[in-house]
Structures are given as C-alpha cells and as structure tokens.
C-alpha cells in the first residue's frame, strides 16, 4: 500500500471529478472497486450491470485507471404507439414475425434483449506542483451499437489549493446497426415479410446501408472551491454536440383516424419516428458538500437545456449518517422535471401532412420523476468496505394530454413508470 502526500490526493480527486466518465478514480491509494446493479421495471424492462474498476499509482507519478462494464437487458419496452380498443399487431424490428397488444394496453415491444460490454482506461499525471493532466479512451459494443472515443483533461490549483479550475473534452464515434436494417424515417410500418429485410434501403438522410454513425463532442468547464473547513462546492458547465443518426430505429408513432371518422382516435397505421440530425446540449451543475458533526450532507442541482426544446431541472440530496462503529446509512432523494422536445407528439392524424421530425418516445415527453433511496455501508476491515443500496424510481407524465380525442381520451398516453434498483458495491484498498 502506497501513501501519497495529501496535496497530490486532492489534485487527483479533482481531476477525476472533472473527467466525468474517466476511469481514473479519486483514490489516494491503489484501489479496486466493483459494483453490481439490478434494475427492474414493473411489467417491463429488467437489467443487470456489473462494473469492476482499478486505480493504481505507477512509476513517474502516473495514475492508471481501468474499468470494465458488462450489462444485460431484457423485457418489453414501449414502442411509442397509442393504446387502442382493438388488438394491435406490430412487425418486429427484424422485419419477420409480429407481436400483439391487447385492447386498452400500452403497446410494448417484447423483443428487446441486449448485452453491452464497455472498457474505459485513463492515465493521469501531475505537471509541476499545481497542474494535473489526464487522458483516456473508451469503447463499448452491443449487438446493434458500438462506440469508441477518447478524452483529455487539465486541472490547475489556485489560491493555496483552495480553488481548482478544470477543462476537459471528449470525442466519441458511435455506430448504430439496427436489427432488420435502418427503417426509412416516417415511412409506414409494413406487415411482417418473413425474410427480415423490408427495412433496408436508402434513408432520406442519404447514407444508405444498414448502419448509421453518430459523432459526439463534449466539453466540461469546472470550478471546485473550498469554502471553509467543513464545506466544499463545485460548479460545472457542460456542452455536448451530437451529429448524425440520432433517431431511435425501434420507435414508432400511431397514425390515428381523424375526428370526423366513425372511429376517431383509432389507429390506422404506424410510422417510424424521425429526429433531427444534430443536437446541442448544455447543462450547469452545482454541488455543495458539508460536514455536520460527523455526518455529511450533499446537495446538487442541474439545469439542462438543448436545441430540441428540452429543459430540465434535477435536484439531489444525500445525507450520510455516520455511526461510531464505522457503519453508515445514507438516504437519498432525487427530483427531476423535464419539458417535451419540440417534435414530440403522442400520435399523428391520418390525412394531415407529416411533420419534419416526430417522435412519440416517452423519454422526450414532458414528465417529472422521483427517486427515493437508502444505502447501508459497512466496513469489513481497515481496507475494505461493502455498500448495499436500494432505490425506487418513478416517472409521472401527462396521462391524458389535451390533444387526445376520440377513444384516445380513455387511455393512459403516458403510463406511469415504476422501477426498483438494488446495488451491491465493494471497495478494497491495496
């Protein structure tokens, strides 16, 4: 076990803070950390994710960080279509086969099954007494998605190391290869063909083939400030520019009968969604942590906005109650509220001109979300610690939006999402 001087610890910690997705861990010692997460939505998606990370000091004051992630996902997920009074039949993403949705139920695509493997590595090093630089890369792969990227960051201490400013940037190149080929945006979903290839062909963004690319550039500017002996604050600004294929190839919209038809609001057909090919996301983030007689309170707030029209507020409160025997409990409350993207709609109406972009994805709808959680932390010995966490997450949207008409008025167009999360984490210094 190598102990380093405390100043260097602080620099390392702040560097890791700035490089948000970096594998460098803010440890003052060499450390191995692992975590297993089970996520389960009521009647919908279940997921399991495991992460193993290691941070190790090397010769020449280098700090190496490595992290491996594996996750598996299964279970039905909303496809974007509206409920109906009749049985609805949808073509599976592969193009062959179909699935049915019973009357009055939210259409769920039950073909979702995916595994993801990701690796992150980073290397950090002090340059002189007051500056720290780091660089890293990541790659991840799923059966229909892959990503490769790299990042770099720099931090500088000021004012007797009470202030640290930082700048970091990242670039990521992602490739989407949807099952059954890339659907033509806003085209009508065809009945299953059995040969699995009716989605293939030229999309209207002109790329052609079965895959599309997405480029993402990120930048984060940060200030960390020691306020007094018991308080530290952080202020971040982040910018992210995405370009390329940003559409979800598996999401659709219902085209419903108009108000003058004999069955107003009933589905006539389904079309594939379409999103813009560019997105600029910005966020400001503030966090304050204060020591209160042996316990710790952490308050964080984020304001997010983008050029798709989404605005959101996120507030987190953690309170770590420390017992004298080294055990701790930490209640957590998170509140989230977002507005809808400009091109979000719950359905389109037959006979009306198609919009330039359209999605019925509930993740781009207006909704609020609440997380309630509790963590129990217990030491095994002086160098290792176990953390057990349970959280409940729920989303509440507009179940009966004003634009609903006809039979759509009697259904939940934003069914409440309820999910449970359980996490087991283990940390060991060496």
């Amino acid at each position, binding site marked *: 076990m190598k102990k380093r001087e405390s100043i260097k*610890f602080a620099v390392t910690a702040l560097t890791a*803070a*700035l490089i*948000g997705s970096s594998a460098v*861990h*803010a440890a003052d010692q060499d450390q191995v*950390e692992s*975590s297993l997460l089970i996520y389960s939505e009521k009647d919908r998606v279940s997921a399991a*994710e495991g*992460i193993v*990370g290691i941070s190790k000091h090397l010769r020449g004051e280098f700090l190496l960080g490595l992290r491996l992630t594996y996750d598996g996902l299964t279970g039905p997920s909303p496809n974007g279509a509206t409920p109906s009074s009749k049985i609805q039949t949808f073509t599976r993403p592969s193009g062959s086969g179909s699935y049915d949705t019973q009357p009055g139920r939210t259409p769920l695509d039950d073909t979702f099954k995916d595994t*993801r493997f990701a690796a992150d590595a980073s290397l950090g090093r002090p340059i002189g007494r007051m500056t720290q630089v780091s660089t890293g890369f990541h790659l991840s792969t*799923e059966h229909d*998605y892959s990503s490769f*990227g790299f990042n770099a960051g720099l931090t500088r201490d*000021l004012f*007797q190391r*009470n*202030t640290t*400013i930082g700048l970091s940037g*990242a670039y*990521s190149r992602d490739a989407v290869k949807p099952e059954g080929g890339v659907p033509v945006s806003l085209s009508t979903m065809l009945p299953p063909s059995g040969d699995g290839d009716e989605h293939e062909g030229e999309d209207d963004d002109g790329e052609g083939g079965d895959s599309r690319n997405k480029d993402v550039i*990120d930048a*984060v*500017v940060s*200030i960390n*400030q*020691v*306020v007094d*002996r*018991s308080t*530290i604050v*952080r*202020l*971040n600004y*982040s*910018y*992210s520019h*995405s370009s390329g294929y940003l559409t979800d190839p598996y999401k659709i919209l219902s085209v419903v009968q108009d108000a003058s038809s004999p069955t107003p609001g009933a589905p006539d057909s389904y079309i594939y969604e379409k999103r813009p090919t560019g997105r600029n*996301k910005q*966020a400001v983030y503030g*966090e304050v*942590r204060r*020591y209160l007689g042996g316990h*710790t309170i952490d308050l964080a707030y*984020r*304001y997010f906005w*983008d*050029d798709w029209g*989404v605005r*959101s507020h*996120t507030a987190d409160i953690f309170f770590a109650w420390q017992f004298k025997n080294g055990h*701790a409990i930490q209640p957590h409350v998170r509140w*989230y509220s977002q507005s809808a993207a400009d091109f979000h709609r719950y359905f389109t109406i037959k006979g009306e001109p198609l919009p330039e972009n359209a999605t019925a994805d509930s993740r781009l709808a207006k909704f609020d*979300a609440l997380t309630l959680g509790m963590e129990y932390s217990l030491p095994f010995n002086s160098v290792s610690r176990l953390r057990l966490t349970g959280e409940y*997450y729920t*989303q509440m949207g507009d179940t009966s939006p004003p634009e609903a008409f006809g039979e759509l008025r009697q259904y939940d167009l934003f069914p409440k999402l309820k999910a449970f*999360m359980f*996490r087991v*984490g283990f940390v060991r210094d060496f």
Partner: protein
Amino acid sequence: MYLKRSAKWLSFLLLLIAAASVSGCASMGVKVWERDILAKPQMQMDAQAIDRSMDDHIYFSKEASSGGRGFGGGGCGCN
C-alpha cells in the same frame, strides 16, 4: 424563440458568475493545517464514482437530459 433567448442570457449570466467566483475565490478557503475535515473519506466528492456512473447510465437511458456532473455524450445505444 423565447426559450433560446433565455438560454443565451443564462449562459452569459453563468459566465459572469464563474468569472466573479474565480476572483471571489481568492478570499475563500482554509490554510493547509485546517484541512483535517476536508481530508476525510466522506468529504471526497468522487468517493463513489462507480455508483454515480451507474445511476447516470440509468437516468441517461430513461430521461432526455445528460451531462452536468461530467460528459453527457455517447457511448451507449440506450438513448
């Protein structure tokens, strides 16, 4: 249009606050020998980096927002 203009003003305001913060920071803080509490493990903001990244992954795949604490970019087909 109104929201875009608000966002621009908010960016400008934040830059102003950031600039003011840096100059104001010079008078804040503690001496080296007063860092006993700040050095405690529970005062390290990134002590649970892996847990926070797992949470961010969940929220990134269920909500329209990302970033703020760190990068908000790609790497996952979940959104």
